């Protein structure tokens, strides 16, 4: 139906990528976890707790990476009105929110033995928390309208506002943290990474990336099917004899 043509090219590409990304995700997760949990030494300061880092740090990377993806997709959707970009942004946000959530939870799990408390207002954790709220707001805005197109467009503007604002939030939170830094605490990142830790870290990061690609393709397919269904329902509705006003006013 008109410009919402069936994005057949995407479907073909997705079909070709999906088995590979899914397979690699499983493989890399197994190897990465083996390195992270068994084959790497405990940290001399953090002892076994350091192993949380192999999940925490890749999750933080992915949280930022997905946001960058979201911003690019939103810009493409707004400027070129590419319907697939709108749907991609819609599909990305929950994945990014999940990575951000994983980052926060693992941060708390790490903080309990290290700081003796589940939550410390560490600058990085606080920034990630605000990024999480941002994702949640994006998802809520996307779904807040009766007309799904309006939701994705509004969320795209929000995503671009975030691109300007989030670095400022990061800067202000860092500033705030230096003003209120109580005593020197062990920060949530290792200052220098030993090569034996680098292997599991990179493997896990790749596994997370594979997971992201896999889930993104699945979610995008789902969104495309949903849109097709809506279009189908609308054309049927128009065929009915007694049609009343419908669609956005």
């Amino acid at each position, binding site marked *: *139906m*008109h*410009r*919402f043509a069936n994005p057949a090219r995407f479907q073909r590409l997705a079909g070709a990528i999906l088995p590979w990304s899914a397979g690699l995700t499983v493989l890399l997760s197994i190897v990465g976890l083996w390195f992270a949990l068994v084959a790497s030494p405990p940290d001399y300061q953090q002892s076994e707790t350091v192993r949380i880092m192999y999940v925490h740090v890749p999750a933080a990377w992915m949280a930022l990476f997905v946001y960058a993806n979201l911003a690019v997709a939103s810009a493409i959707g707004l400027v070129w009105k590419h319907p697939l970009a709108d749907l991609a942004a819609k599909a990305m946000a929950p994945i990014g929110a999940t990575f951000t959530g994983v980052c926060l939870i693992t941060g708390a799990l790490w903080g309990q033995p290290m700081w003796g408390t589940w939550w410390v207002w560490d600058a990085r954790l606080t920034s990630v928390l605000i990024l999480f709220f941002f994702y949640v707001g994006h998802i809520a805005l996307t779904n807040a309208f009766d*007309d*799904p*197109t*309006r939701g994705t467009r509004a969320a795209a503007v929000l995503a671009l506002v975030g691109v300007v604002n989030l670095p400022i939030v990061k800067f202000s939170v860092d500033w705030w943290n230096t003003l209120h830094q109580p005593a020197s605490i062990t920060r949530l990142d290792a200052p220098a990474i030993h090569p034996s830790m680098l292997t599991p870290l990179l493997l896990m990061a790749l596994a997370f990336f594979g997971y992201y690609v896999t889930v993104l393709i699945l979610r995008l397919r789902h969104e495309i099917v949903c*849109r097709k269904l*809506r*279009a189908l329902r*609308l054309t049927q509705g*128009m*065929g009915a004899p007694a*049609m*009343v*006003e*419908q*669609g*956005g*006013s």
Partner: protein
Amino acid sequence: MDEFTGTALACVRGERLVFKDLSFRVGAGQVLALTGPNGSGKSSLLRLMAGLIRPAGGRLAWDGADIADDPDAHRARLHYLGHLDALKPTLTVTENVAFYAALRGHRDPAAVSAALAAFGLSALADLPARFLSQGQRRRTALARLLAAPAPLWLLDEPTLGLDAASLDALLAVLRRHVATGGRAVIATHAPLDVPGLAELRLGSRAP
């Protein structure tokens, strides 16, 4: 000369195709009446003509120049009257109309009172709009058309809630507008007795 034209227009609202392959032409001194059943896209077409909606296909042109090239100039030459009267209940009738004129860059109290007089609102001029009846509200909205000059009027059901005398007043105003080279596009179910009238019938069902 100075033709307002649309060629092969398509309109998508949300994810619904409202119409496609729609063309029209309004010259100086012409009135185009949009007719058709509910949901055929009369209001959408008017919003599209005003530039509130971007066409999904086709082009709108004024005197041959695409209006998308200079949307500011297009907005400056049109009056749009929607379903809603856009009146602020706490402002008086005069203030409501004068605000609209000022928003369009015209600050002329004489024009505002003349506009109110044309629709028989002089006696209500200082009354807050919340006290107006439905018909009086519609007349106040219509008075905006005369408070600031514009060559193109886009009117969505302007006769809604008007009594016979007000309808005559509207037709008189329209005739004068047309006689001075103005043009109008009007979505309506009522017959319009205006010279230079053409009709564009929108289909009952979209393809």
